[in-house]
């Protein structure tokens, strides 16, 4: 019997009576992660950003619920993972994983974030509709079902041509809320890519990926507002991931994972400031400079693209990595300084970057 049947109701009931329960949220996620370690180690690793997210909001009326949203979102990924044979569970899981963090977007009660939330819910509804249809059709009308699944995930990731919502939502919302929105739903979408594995023609994934990289980078290079720069950089990273998808689905997930953890910390720092060291590590992670986490997936994307798709593809990926340098340097300059930061994420980024042999082979084999 799946332990979720017992743990989830117990946790939700406990959570209803304890308003500030970060430790309980973290413990729930950790318990689920430990439980899945035997059967699904990927899910265990994915718990890291969710545990980080429990502690990411430090102000705002909704801040005490960050952990709850993270826990619901993580449960969603769990359902996607176990629901590979049960499409209704996978669909439910996807909705939970994507929507729960989004509800905290207006954490600071500002009008912009509220507008952002409505827009996001609209997009999320479209994406979920495609996902449900895709899952339902996959058995009987394979090509169409797979394409719908792919489009649903690409929409959630913010890939071209469905990217404008990312810029629109990020551009109007408060960085505090974006710390959650820009990270957890993206990981959920990339995890869905790995677990549901939509089979689309290589050319589609490559084209969407290549265009997203380019549009994202060009957009970020020409934007002023830091939130918009980071929004476009998300588009670019979605591009990297979808480009990598044909080479290795695990690599696609690793690219989004590194970007998402970095984005969570960057938006947190944009909201509350942080040390220069932390900012440096985060920016290095986004560009892909060693020894931090973000380097390894980009290196392998470069190597695999060169060898499987040819020199031109490798150079295109490299050009896109290089294109991102100027705007990330701008991000480094513009991020507010301070002493109190969200150091946990920087530590995770550095630690995972220092021990690539502990996870790289395995993630590439997914």
């Amino acid at each position, binding site marked *: 019997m799946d332990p979720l049947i017992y743990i989830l109701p117990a946790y939700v009931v406990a959570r209803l009576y304890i308003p500030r329960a970060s430790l309980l949220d973290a413990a729930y996620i950790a318990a689920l992660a430990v439980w899945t370690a035997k059967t699904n180690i990927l899910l265990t690793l994915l718990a890291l950003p969710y545990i980080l997210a429990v502690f990411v909001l430090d102000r705002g009326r909704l801040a005490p619920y960050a952990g709850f949203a993270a826990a619901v979102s993580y449960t969603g990924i769990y359902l996607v993972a176990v629901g590979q044979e049960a499409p209704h569970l996978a669909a439910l899981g996807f909705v939970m994983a994507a929507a729960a963090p989004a509800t905290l977007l207006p954490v600071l009660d500002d009008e912009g974030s509220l507008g952002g939330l409505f827009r996001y819910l609209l997009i999320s509804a479209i994406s979920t509709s495609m996902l449900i249809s895709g899952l339902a059709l996959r058995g009987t009308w394979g090509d169409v079902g797979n394409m719908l699944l792919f489009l649903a995930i690409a929409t959630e990731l913010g890939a071209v041509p469905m990217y404008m919502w990312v810029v629109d939502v990020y551009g109007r919302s408060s960085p505090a809320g974006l710390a959650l929105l820009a990270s957890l739903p993206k990981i959920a979408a990339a995890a869905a890519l790995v677990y549901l594995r939509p089979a689309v023609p290589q050319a589609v994934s490559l084209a969407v990926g290549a265009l997203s990289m380019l549009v994202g980078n060009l957009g970020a290079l020409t934007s002023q507002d830091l939130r918009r720069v980071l929004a476009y950089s998300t588009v670019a990273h979605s591009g990297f991931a979808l480009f990598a998808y044909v080479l290795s689905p695990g690599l696609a997930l690793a690219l989004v994972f590194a970007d998402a953890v970095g984005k969570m910390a960057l938006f947190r720092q944009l909201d509350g400031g942080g040390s220069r060291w932390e900012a440096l590590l985060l920016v*290095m992670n986004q560009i892909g*400079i*060693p*020894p931090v986490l973000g380097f390894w997936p980009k*290196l*392998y994307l*470069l*190597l*695999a693209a*060169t*060898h499987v798709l040819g*020199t031109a593809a*490798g*150079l295109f990926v*490299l050009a896109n990595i*290089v294109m991102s*340098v100027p705007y990330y*340097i701008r991000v480094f300059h513009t991020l507010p300084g301070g002493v109190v930061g969200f150091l946990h994420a920087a530590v995770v980024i550095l630690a995972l970057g220092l021990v*690539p*042999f502990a996870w*790289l*082979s395995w993630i*590439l*084999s997914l």
Partner: protein
Amino acid sequence: MFDLFLLATALAAALSIAALKAGRPAALAAQLAMFLYLAQQGRQHLVSMPYIGEVAVSLDFYKMPFAATSIALGLLVTLYASRYLEHIQAARWYYGVHALYVLSFVWIILFENLVFVFLALELSIITSFLLIWYFGYGDRRRVGLLYFIWAQVGSILFLVGVALSGHFVAEGFKAFGLASLLVLVGLLVKMGTAGAHFWLPYAHAEAPTPLSALLSPVHVGLMAYWIWRLREGAQWPLEVLYAYGLATAIYGSFLVFREVDIKRALADSTIANMGLLVAAAAVKHPLGYFALALLFVGHAFAKAAGFMLSGIYIVGLHTRRFDELRWDLKIFAIAVMTFVALSGVFGINLLGKIGVALGAPHSLSVVVLLIAALFTTALYSFYILNRIYKGGAGEVSVDGEMYISTLASAVLPYILMPVVLLWFL
């Protein structure tokens, strides 16, 4: 040996990080711990990575001079830096970043997997970039970025070349066509040879002086080892490379004459010496390696002494301009030893130059280039010495530690000469 590598890495890294807070004592301890790396023998497998293959470290006879010089010089510069850093009011974390920078040199040489060599190169770029960005001179941020971008361009071209070649391990490395070219161009950009040199004088002159003393002779010089190491598999046209190296040496030497500032002159002279190193790395003669190693070691200590001397002037006289420099006997002694060694008239640099000359192909035009290169590299050294001498006698106040470490660096090219000769005999 695996344990030794891990132990040295754990100690050196932990002490370097501790030095970010604790400053010089921890940085000294970190660099002393790095000598542990030199105790390991042979090749050691560390881990296997998907796609890029085996990651191993090795320290053989050929790597030893490069690794040992890097650590020894790092240590000397740490001893030297205290008074200088007080002068520029640098924060204590300077020492921690400096120790990590020295650690990157050891890794650049020790790693056998070229992707990990790239990683070590990245560590060296980031650490040196931070020191220029925060503690450099003049328009330090612009210069820092210029340096960062060009160093990255070199490293990335190297990495792309390696990726295209499909051979990630130095042993049995093979590259053809574009891949081979990119690996070479990447290394040459990082060395700042003619055509890819214009970032070098800015970066090396505007860096804080203790950093210049490592950046200029060691960081860029280590690339010559990799040119030498990969040359067989990459099938570069070695005669062309030899001539190009000599041409760089001549061009770099001429650049020195335009300068009015001792640090800029020393930075330009690095371009000339990198030319000699490229020529040495391209020598087909069996003595080619010795030419390379001797020129690297001799240039490293002499050039570091030159930069340390300029640091003494900056602290003592608050100037870098030739026409404002003064000398007393103890300063002049260092200047003479430094520039005579740098000229290659005596010291192990002389032996290195002989090695380069022995490797000259039988072509009249290359021999003319060779003579011109040997001459101009000597000439600019005496030109700098003359400019210092013309400044006139006068008292220069100098801190004891600064003086001793500069002196040690200046005499080493001479002390090592009988050692090398005895070893040969």
